[in-house]
């Protein structure tokens, strides 16, 4: 990992466990709950949370994966970001309390896109949000119900979450970008 480390593997593990407790606490149980991870790293996080809840409550919650590629509001990103095929919702959303899971909450646009997508699949009773890192700089009125760690950042920084499932080890680092981030839409 390069960059400044802001969460160690242990901290990631503890935050995940705490989030799983909070989720159950907020629901006053596990009834009606379902976890949906946002591709890519939200998915392994959602599975970890589900595993933690299984250990503590003895209940296996349904876990799905959501690909929001087609719901972004910026066409100029299409050519930059190839498709990540991976929407798999093997349960009925109608009436469920969905907890969206993502690794980093930033502008909020990803979450908005995710909610748009979910609505095309059914009508959940409620949608909540759990993220490992909240780095601020919201551009939309979106807030997380459950946060692993609040990390103030500047726009010139990049927050990278590493998970064993995708990156060989756990951890969160902050890197400085080489150039000032280009505002989406004024592509190269």
């Amino acid at each position: 990992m390069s960059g400044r480390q802001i969460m160690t593997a242990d901290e990631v593990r503890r935050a995940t466990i705490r989030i799983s407790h909070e989720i159950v606490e907020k629901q006053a149980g596990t009834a009606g709950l379902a976890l949906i991870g946002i591709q890519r790293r939200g998915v392994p996080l959602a599975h970890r949370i589900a595993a933690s809840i299984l250990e503590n409550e003895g209940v296996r919650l349904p876990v799905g994966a959501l690909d929001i590629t087609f719901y972004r509001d910026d066409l100029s990103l299409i050519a930059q970001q190839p498709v990540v095929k991976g929407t798999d919702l093997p349960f009925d959303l109608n009436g469920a309390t969905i907890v969206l899971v993502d690794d980093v909450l930033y502008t909020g646009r990803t979450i908005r896109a995710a909610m748009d997508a979910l609505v095309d699949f059914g009508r959940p009773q409620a949608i909540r949000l759990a993220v490992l890192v909240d780095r601020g700089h919201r551009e939309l009125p979106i807030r997380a119900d459950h946060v692993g760690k609040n990390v103030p950042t500047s726009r010139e920084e990049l927050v990278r979450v590493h998970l064993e499932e995708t990156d060989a080890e756990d951890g969160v680092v902050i890197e400085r970008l080489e150039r000032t981030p280009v505002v989406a839409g004024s592509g190269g």
Partner: protein
Amino acid sequence: MTAAPPEQGTGGPAAVVPMALPVPSVDAAPASQPSPWPHRHLLDLDVVSWPEIELVMRTAEAMKEVLARPIARVPALRGTGVTILFYEASTRTRVSFEVAAKNLSADVVNIAAASSSVSKGESLVDTIRTVEALGARMIVIRHATSGAANLAAEHFSGSVLNGGDGWHAHPSQALLDLFTLRERLPGGSLHGRKVVILGDVLHSRVARSNIWSLTAAGADLWLCGPATLLRGFERWAASSADVPGHGRFQVTSDIGRALRDADVIMALRLQRERMAAGLLPSVREYAARYGLNLERLGLARPDALVMHPGPMNEGVEIAPEVADHPRSVITDQVTNGVAVRMALLYLLAGAAANDD
């Protein structure tokens, strides 16, 4: 142009498919990352590389998943004007494009224009300019003259997707054919598979575009038909070995030799005008010598697939029993057509947005 494509792994629906092209982080600045689909227009497949074709395939897989949802719609192209401009009558393809655009939430205008621009008074260039002035950012065009889509692209500031121009090209058809074959062939790869395109190759834009895509995919491609309908292709085949990124293909009028041990047979429509032009003695003779019937299908491998771009002349180039055969993937072609066209509209929109 790249070297021959690597062997494909299992293409079955599973977990996230490993990326051949890098997956940038959503947080990173877009300008610092590579652009996998660079083409503002899709006019022909000769300039599309194999990695780009694979990107279309992956995108189409994702679109197929969208089509399986209860609401088969995504907002990706919301607010984008897509005009479908068909100068040739074709219900199937025109509707396929319309459905594809609508599934992406685009604003669709569907024009079945009169054929032969000049004689009807409004030139193609005038029509393109009008369509642009009315807000179109993408045009899907089908026209009876080769090169018409190129002309449209020259005079349009948005994206042009060639829906079939004269004898020249039909890129979305070749891509949906490829998609269908990858889905249905064991192993999901065309590498080394014997694919035969059978019929009126000379007048076929489907054949020409498939030559580009199938040779890029590493297939052992054969073209077969009567000599009058293969005129000029032996010369192309002879030079095909030297084309970077593509393989050699074969040309023969010997249907037995062509079909023997084939993995895929693609039959092409025979138009009755060909008889009037003196190219063939009669439909009956064509059907007798080159029609794909059960006996000829038997020359191919036992698990060979049958394809046809449609619409079919059953009893001429293809026997009804063969069209309805369990190994016919003709209906898959139609279904996949929507997914592939969604993928193309989506990728072109992204390239156009990056050009601004």
